[in-house]
């Protein structure tokens, strides 16, 4: 199949934050050691928390099922290492809340071998079987959203999918996780695509890659076998190109309706690392025990891409890579949408695509003074879904949340942060919107 490598296509608006990927994009993925204690939250995904199937004190093998999905919108959890379940209790999580988690103490010198489960053959399995297998493998969107992948793939009655989009854009600055995956796990990706094509019934797949990763695009398009209806297409470097809606618009010119899902325009969009995971795990019937994470930022000594066991405490991970300078801010994910953590005791979860560490030098660059909105309209020109953040920000300040939702489509905002990024008055727009949405949801519910 031919690759379309002329990256002219994109969505309208958006911003151009400095990419900052040079530090890690040439670093091969390295295996991370086990932490002395791992914390596996039962709710690392959107939806119902998983139900634990192990007891405190029970010994488990690497890859063994720790918790099973509780309902359809829920996924399984597997042991990241062979060890002992110390206890099942509340533990801090990245969002600042306490969630039910399994404390696992790996055996000293535990190996990397993983137990095998019931393999699912891409040729013979039915779509429903594959969906079940994906759920059992505990796969969620590894791009950051952590939405259970199998739910996305369940095509509702009366709808169909014609295109499968594999999202290899990775538009967040600093992060190079997907970039490395696309270079190093090509076979897994292609295998994953086979599963996904089968499940979705799509006639073709498009791998969308941002133009700053030409090596990945070239490697992938060279590897696509003739029997697979897959094209590799490049899109412009622009944030938030990696958002599902933006990528669909860039590649297909289709607009996902407000309040709708990609499936409403016959598309399903799966992150490239998620795809690789499907292709790697399903043939062996295994579950997720580790994932690739970029640990980077000016505060990190050994920046790089690491294959890191799920549940590794952040503190352990940072100690391993070494810190430099006066660290003031650590966040999980990229700098645009990532979650700043208040404590280093939180574990790395399935949805953690990167860890970025800032020192006081970076934080000092962010002006502290908040000016009133001067209606410069930078935010209006940045918003990828054409909202009016300026107006909404002013309304939010006066507490007029209903008006924001009714007249200005607040609920369509996916908090990409472009508006706050460009705001010269330093108004925390995204924070306002998040707050407003929360209050509105509370009022409704």
């Amino acid at each position: 199949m031919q690759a379309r490598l002329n990256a002219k296509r994109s969505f309208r608006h958006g911003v151009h934050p400095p990419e900052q990927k040079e530090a890690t994009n040439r670093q091969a993925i390295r295996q991370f050691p086990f932490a002395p204690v791992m914390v596996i939250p039962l709710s690392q995904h959107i939806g119902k928390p998983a139900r634990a199937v192990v007891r405190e004190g029970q010994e488990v093998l690497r890859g063994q099922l720790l918790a099973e999905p509780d309902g359809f919108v829920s996924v399984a959890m597997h042991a990241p290492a062979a060890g002992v379940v110390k206890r099942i209790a509340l533990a801090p999580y990245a969002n600042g809340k306490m969630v039910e988690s399994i404390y696992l103490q790996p055996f000293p010198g535990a190996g990397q071998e993983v137990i095998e489960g019931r393999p699912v053959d891409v040729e013979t399995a039915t779509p429903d079987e594959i969906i079940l297998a994906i759920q059992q493998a505990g796969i969620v969107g590894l791009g950051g959203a952590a939405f259970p992948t199998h739910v996305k793939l369940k095509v509702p009655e009366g709808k169909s999918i014609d295109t499968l989009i594999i999202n290899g854009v990775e538009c967040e600055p600093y992060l190079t996780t997907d970039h490395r995956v696309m270079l190093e796990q090509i076979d897994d990706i292609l295998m994953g695509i086979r599963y996904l094509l089968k499940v979705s019934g799509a006639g073709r797949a498009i791998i969308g890659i941002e133009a700053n990763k030409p090596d990945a695009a070239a490697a992938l398009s060279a590897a696509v076998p003739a029997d697979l209806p897959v094209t590799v297409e490049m899109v412009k470097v622009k944030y938030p190109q990696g958002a599902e809606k933006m990528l669909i618009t860039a590649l297909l010119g289709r607009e996902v309706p407000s309040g709708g899902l990609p499936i409403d325009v016959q598309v399903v969009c799966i992150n490239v690392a998620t795809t690789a995971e499907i292709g790697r795990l399903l043939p062996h019937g295994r579950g997720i025990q580790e994932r690739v994470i970029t640990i980077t930022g000016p505060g990190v000594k050994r920046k790089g891409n690491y294959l890191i066991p799920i549940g590794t405490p952040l503190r352990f991970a940072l100690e391993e890579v070494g810190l430099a300078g006066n660290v003031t801010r650590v966040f999980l994910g990229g700098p645009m949408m990532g979650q700043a953590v208040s404590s280093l005791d939180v574990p790395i979860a399935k949805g953690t695509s990167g860890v970025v560490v800032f020192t006081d030098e970076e934080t000092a660059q962010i002006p502290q003074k908040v000016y009133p909105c001067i209606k410069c309209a930078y935010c209006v020109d940045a918003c990828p879904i054409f909202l009016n953040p300026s107006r909404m920000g002013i309304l939010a300040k006066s507490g007029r949340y209903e008006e924001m939702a009714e007249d200005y489509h607040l609920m369509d905002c996916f908090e990409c942060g472009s508006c706050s990024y460009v705001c010269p008055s330093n108004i925390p727009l995204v924070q306002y919107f998040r707050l407003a949405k929360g209050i509105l949801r509370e009022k409704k519910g």
Partner: protein
Amino acid sequence: MSKINKTLEIRTSPHIVRGLSTDDIMRNVVWALLPVAGFAVYTFGLTALVMLSVATLSCVLSEHILCRLNGRESTIGDWSITITGLLYGLTLPPGLPLWMVAVGGFIAVGLGKFLFGGLGYNVFNPALVGRAFLQAAFPVAMTTWHPAFADGRFFSLDGATLTVPFMEPVYTAVTGATPLAAMKFAQQPTAAYDLVFGFTSGSAGETSALFILAGGAYLAVRNMLNWRIPAAIFATVALLSGILHAIDPQHYAGPMFMLFSGGLMLGAVFMATDMVATPLTNRGVIIYGVLIAVLTVMIRYWGGLPEGVMYAILFANAASRHIDRLVQPRVYGTLKQAKRGS
């Protein structure tokens, strides 16, 4: 792990910013205005220098005092008031008595900005509010023009400049006529060369089209000014005056004259583009620009006054909220949903 601060900052995303702050924008606008002010001093001499300084100072001081009286932190540090002061000065006739300049400066800040809540809330361009007030209060002084390029202008002040406060100015020097007034009342056109290079009489800052365009281009390139506003104004004015001039050249001055005379350049580039008082969307600002242009042409051709840019901009300021309402950007995914629903 000693290097990690005891308290990590938890600010919500995004964690990086572009690093262009409001005061940066304001400061750049001041830079862009300085050459215009410089040319005004070159053209009108000491008179313009003193007048511009008093205009700027009166605005800055008023802002400072009003902020303090209201128990707020003084906001003169954000440079926005310096822009207002400088712009306000540039719209005044150079020989205007200084006490009037100071009164107008206070009005510009008090009425045009402070009453509405300060920076970001001034629904009208404050400089123009000050000028409109002066125009209504002291119509004679506001239409008496100091001649350009007078001999010895760098060493002498216009006699009216130092008028005792609250007294009527007495004009001794020969006064100039603006190209627009000459055209309207005496049907005397001015050479295009003089207009472009600013060898004419008029408000301090409106004479040199070149310096204004250069300043505007600098800001537009740095994305600190929405180029669509002046572009829409120029295009519409040129189009309308072109058509009317073609129909009746005797009555209607041509596009060149319309573009380069009076306050159109200064207004379109620096006044109409006051971010706070303009619509937000790009479609909105084009409508806004067209509205300004149409009103300006209307007032200049058919109105009683020779110049109408100021009124046109103030009117469009008042209308900009409605323009915004009319042309809200179509939110992603809403059109198709409507189609789907029907």
